[in-house]
């Protein structure tokens, strides 16, 4: 895959079974300049990622933010599935919940969630996502550079930092 000259927006996959919360999280993310795909179940999230197609990543998703309490597959179940997959385990996962249950929070964080947000989620929470995304992008870029033996141009780096400053 060829790297674009300028970095595109981060793509966040939001998972929540409630329409109101989906609308809210989508707006919060878009306001923070993320590209958003919102789905209403863990199963749909996995389908979107392409997990069912021999673990091949169909689309690029930079972060997954999911509700905990969902019928069928909970946010925790989804977290485990992502972390157990060789293709997707490096995608940062954030969990949201309206219930403040310390044992739940700890379990999610111990099993690989980057953050745990209490609902209702606010802009100040969404602002905490960027470091996790920037860290991954830098890592990915370093890996790609090593793999492709490419030299990063100063212009490309400047473009990335400009994106940061805007927000």
């Amino acid at each position, binding site marked *: 895959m060829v790297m674009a000259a300028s970095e595109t927006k981060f793509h966040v996959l939001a998972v929540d079974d*409630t*329409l*109101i919360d989906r609308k809210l999280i989508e707006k919060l993310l878009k306001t923070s300049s993320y590209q958003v795909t919102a789905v209403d179940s863990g199963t749909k999230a996995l389908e979107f990622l392409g997990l069912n197609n021999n673990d091949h990543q169909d689309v690029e998703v930079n972060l997954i933010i999911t509700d905990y309490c969902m019928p069928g597959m909970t946010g925790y179940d989804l977290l485990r599935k992502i972390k157990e997959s060789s293709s997707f385990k490096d995608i940062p996962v954030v969990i949201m919940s*309206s219930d403040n249950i310390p044992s739940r929070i700890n379990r999610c964080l111990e099993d690989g969630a980057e953050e745990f947000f209490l609902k*209702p989620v*606010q802009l100040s929470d969404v602002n905490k996502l960027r470091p996790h995304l920037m860290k991954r992008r830098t890592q990915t870029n370093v890996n790609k550079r090593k793999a492709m033996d490419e030299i990063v141009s100063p212009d490309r780096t400047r473009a990335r930092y400009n994106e940061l400053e805007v927000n």
Partner: protein
Amino acid sequence: MDRNRLHNQVASMRRSLFDQGYLDDQFIQLEELQDDTNPNFVQEVVTLFYNDSARLIQNIEQALNSSPIDFCKLDDYMHQFKGSSSSIGAKKVTNECTAFREYCNAENAEGCIRSFQQVKQEYAILKRKLEVYLQTVRQASQTA
């Protein structure tokens, strides 16, 4: 002159909604998310809340009228109701939902029934106030 009067009305209604504890900071978050790309965001979210609430109230009524009462199902419905009310910043409604869930956990049917009356009452009051408030906001924004 009309415009100023309307704007003052909006400001005083809004202040009273917060002062009297009907709304909390989460409602402000909704207002802050409203922008040119989503000029009706607050109304849209509030409408979703009304729709959700109507459905959940009906489900809870049915669940309370069934025998024996399925407290698990009741708690599930109320969990959803509490979730959506807290998502729009409906403080009093959210608090009543919390109280209900305590009766539910204790499997106290009478307590649930009583508490549910409170939930419905607070919801009806909030809905009325919000409808008037948002209508006044619309009028104020349309007045040149």
